C-alpha cells in the first residue's frame, strides 16, 4: 500500500520509549498519522482475549472510549475480540488510536477486522516493525506485544486466559516498569484466570472508567453523567445486580409486564449500565457516572 513511512531508530520521530526495550526495533513501518508517535498525554495499552464475549467487549469499548475522550491514546494490536473493541472505543470517542501489527503494516489482518483496519489507517496510525508485505506468522505476535507494552504508560487487560498473549504483554509491561491493570473476572471462567492471576500478583483493579482514569492521571471528561434511570429501570438494575437474567425472568420476578421490562433494559443499555451476553441474558456493568463517585486514587 502506498503511504507507508519508515521511521528508523536514531532518527527524529522514533519513539524514545521503544529504546527502553533491550531489543528496540530497527525501524517502524507506519501508515497513518505519524504525529501520534510522539503523543504527549498518557498512553493506554489495552489487550485481552480474542474470544471475549459481548460483556467483555462492551466493557473494553467503554473503558477505552472514556480514556480516549479524557485525553489518553489507546494502543492495541488490532486482533479480534478485546483489541478490536479497544480501537473501536477510541474511534467512537472521535479520538485517534494506534494499532501495532504482527505483520506488515500494509497487511489487513485478521481479515474480519478489515473495515476497522481501514479506519485506523485513516483516523489513527498502524505501525509494525516488519517490512511491507510481511505475512502474519504465529511467532511474530508475541514480539509485537512487547511494542504495545513499550509504547504504553499503562497496560489494561480485559479478559485473559492463562498463558495468553495478553499476559505476555503484561509481562513485558512489568519488565519495563509500566503499570499493569486488570478487570477482575468471576472465578472459574476461562477468561478470568489470566486477569485474576495478574490481580493476585498486584495489578491495579479496574471496575470502571473512574478507576481507569485515576491510574492514567486524568480527570473524567466533563460529559453528562449517565441519565438517571427512571424508577422502573432502577428496579430492573437492582434485580440484575443479583445475577444475570433474561427479560422474561425479570418480568416474572418483578411482577412487571414484558413491555416495561424491555423498555427499562433498553434505557439501561443506552446509559451503558447493562450489556447482553450470548444467551440473551442481561448483566450489569458498573457505572458510577461522571461526578457522583470518588475517583480512585493510585497509591502514590
Amino acid at each position, binding site marked *: 500500500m502506498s503511504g507507508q513511512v519508515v521511521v528508523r531508530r536514531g532518527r527524529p520521530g522514533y519513539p524514545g520509549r521503544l529504546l527502553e526495550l533491550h531489543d528496540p526495533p530497527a525501524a517502524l513501518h507506519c501508515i497513518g498519522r505519524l504525529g501520534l508517535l510522539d503523543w504527549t498525554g498518557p498512553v493506554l495499552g489495552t489487550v485481552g482475549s480474542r474470544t471475549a464475549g459481548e460483556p467483555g467487549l462492551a466493557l473494553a469499548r467503554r473503558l477505552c472510549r472514556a480514556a480516549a475522550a479524557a485525553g489518553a491514546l489507546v494502543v492495541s494490536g488490532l486482533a479480534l475480540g478485546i483489541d478490536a473493541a479497544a480501537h473501536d472505543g477510541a474511534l467512537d470517542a472521535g479520538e485517534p488510536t494506534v494499532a501495532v501489527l504482527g505483520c506488515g503494516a500494509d497487511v489487513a489482518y485478521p481479515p474480519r477486522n478489515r473495515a476497522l483496519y481501514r479506519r485506523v489507517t485513516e483516523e489513527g496510525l498502524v505501525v509494525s516493525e516488519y517490512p511491507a508485505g510481511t505475512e502474519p506468522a504465529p511467532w511474530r505476535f508475541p514480539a509485537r506485544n512487547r511494542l504495545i507494552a513499550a509504547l504504553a504508560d499503562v497496560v489494561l487487560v480485559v479478559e485473559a486466559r492463562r498463558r495468553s498473549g495478553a499476559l505476555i504483554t503484561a509481562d513485558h509491561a512489568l519488565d519495563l516498569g509500566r503499570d499493569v491493570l486488570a478487570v477482575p473476572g468471576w472465578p472459574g471462567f476461562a477468561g478470568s484466570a489470566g486477569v485474576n492471576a495478574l490481580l493476585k500478583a498486584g495489578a491495579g483493579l479496574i471496575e470502571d472508567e473512574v478507576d481507569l482514569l485515576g491510574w492514567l492521571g486524568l480527570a473524567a471528561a466533563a460529559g453528562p453523567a449517565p441519565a438517571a434511570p427512571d424508577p422502573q429501570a432502577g428496579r430492573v438494575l437492582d434485580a440484575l445486580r443479583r445475577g444475570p437474567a433474561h427479560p422474561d425472568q425479570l418480568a416474572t420476578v418483578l411482577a412487571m409486564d*414484558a413491555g416495561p421490562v424491555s423498555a427499562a433494559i433498553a434505557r439501561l443499555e443506552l446509559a451503558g449500565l447493562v450489556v447482553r451476553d450470548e444467551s440473551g441474558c442481561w448483566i450489569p456493568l458498573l457505572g458510577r457516572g461522571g461526578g457522583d463517585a470518588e475517583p480512585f486514587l493510585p497509591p502514590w
Partner: protein
Amino acid sequence: MLGRALTFWLAGVEARPIEVEAATRQGATSVTIVGLPDRAVQEARLRVRQGIYSSGFTLRETTVTVNLAPAREKKEGTGFDLAIAFAVLAATRQMPRAAAARVAAIAELGLDGRLKPVPGVLAMAEATARLGLHGIVVAPENAGEAMLAPGVRVIAARTLDHAVGAIVGDQEPAPLPEPAEPHSEPYPDMADVRGQLRARRAVEIAAAGNHNLLMCGPPGSGKSMLARRLPGLLPPPSPAEILEIARVRSAAGLIDDERLPGRPFRSPHHSASVAALVGTARLRPGEVSLAHRGVLFLDELAEFQRPVLEALRLPLEDGEVVIARAAGSARLPARSLVVAAMNPCPCGYHGDPGRPCRCESRRREAYQGRISGPLLDRFDLLVEVPRADAHGAPGEPSAPIAERVARARQLLAERPPPLTAEAEMLLGQAVERSMLSARGRARALRVARSIAALDGEAEVTATHVAEALSFRTELLR
C-alpha cells in the same frame, strides 16, 4: 357466418377479456385457432370438436377459423373451450347469435361434452359484472366461487347442450350451492404458549402495527407456535379483503366455496424455489401472494437459498409482485405480515444454557450473514426466543389480545400518535450512540407508535421508544 362469444384469460389475479370469433365456410371439417394461443388452447380445437359432437351438435362439412382477440396477447389455459364452442355453434346457427354474445363463458370441455372447472373464476365473475354482461356460464364446481363476486348472475351448466339450453331459456340451469358461510375455523390460541413473555409482546406489537417480525432462538423454543397464532390476533378481514384473499386462492385453484376465507397463514418450506415463493412465469400466484392479507411464515430463514431471499425483498417492500414475461406482465397482491424464524447458529444451540453450541464463531457469523442487510431492513422487530419453559404459566388467551390489537389498529388508522419531546430525545440518543442506523430510526419510530397505540395512549412517550429500541434488528448485525 360469424359467431361471437366472450371469455377471459387470467393474468395473475386479473381477468382480461377475450372476444372469441368463429367464422365458418363449407369445406372439409376442421377447426383452426389463431390469436397467439398456447399449447393448451391449441388443443381446445380437438376438445371442442369432440364436445360438440358428444352434445348432439354437428360440424359436418364445415371449416371453422377461430380468432382470439386481442390477438397480440398470448393466451394460456383451458377455460376458453366453452366460449369457442359457443362461437362455433353461433356461427353454424345451432344457437342464437345474440345468446352466445351476451354471457361470459368459462369452462373446459370434456370429450363427452361436460363442463369442467378452471382456476380464477372469481376474478372473471367480477369482470363479468363490471362489463355489464347478462351472466357468467361456468361448470357446477365453479358456481360457488363465481357467486362470491357481487352483482353477477351465475349460470351453472353440466354439459355443453345444457349450457346452451340454460342461456336461451329452454332448460333450467344447474342448482346453485348455498352462499359461502363466513370463516369460522378457529386459529390456535395464544393460551397454549407458556412463558415467552417478551416474544408474546413482540407478536402483539407485530399484529397491532403490521410489523414484520424476526424471531431468533434455539430449535423447539416455540417460534413457529407463536407465528401460527398470529393470524388469530389480527382483526377478521373486511368484505373487500375477503374478496382479495379469495381472488388469489381462486387464481391458484385453491378455493373452498363452502366457506369464506379467513386470514391466510402460509409457511413455505425453506427449499422452496423463487417461482414457488414469488410466482411462476405462467403468472400463477406464489406463496407471497397466497399469504396476502395474512401471515407469511418463513421458518429457518437462513436456510432459504440466497436468490429466493433476494427475490422476496421487492414484494415485501411494495406489497405486490410484478411478474414480467415476453408477452406481458401481471401484478399480484402480496401485502402480508412476514414472520421469520431462525436459529442463532447452524447447530441451533448458540447461547442456549442447556446445551453447548458446536459451531465455530466464524461459521456462526457466516450463518447470520446469510440474511443480507437489505433483507434485514424489511423487518421492524427482532426478538430473541429463549428455550421454552414447559413449566411456565399458561399465557393470556388470544381473545383479549386480539381486542387490544383491534383497538390499537383503529387508533393508528385514525391518527398516528405524536412524539413527546423526551421520546424524540431518546431516539436521537440511540442514533448518536450508533444503536440505530438511519433506517433503524424510522423503524423504531413506527414500532414505538404501535406500542403507544397498544397501551391506548395518545402520545409516544420515551418508554414506548425505549421498548421499541429493545426489538431493534441492529442487534443481529
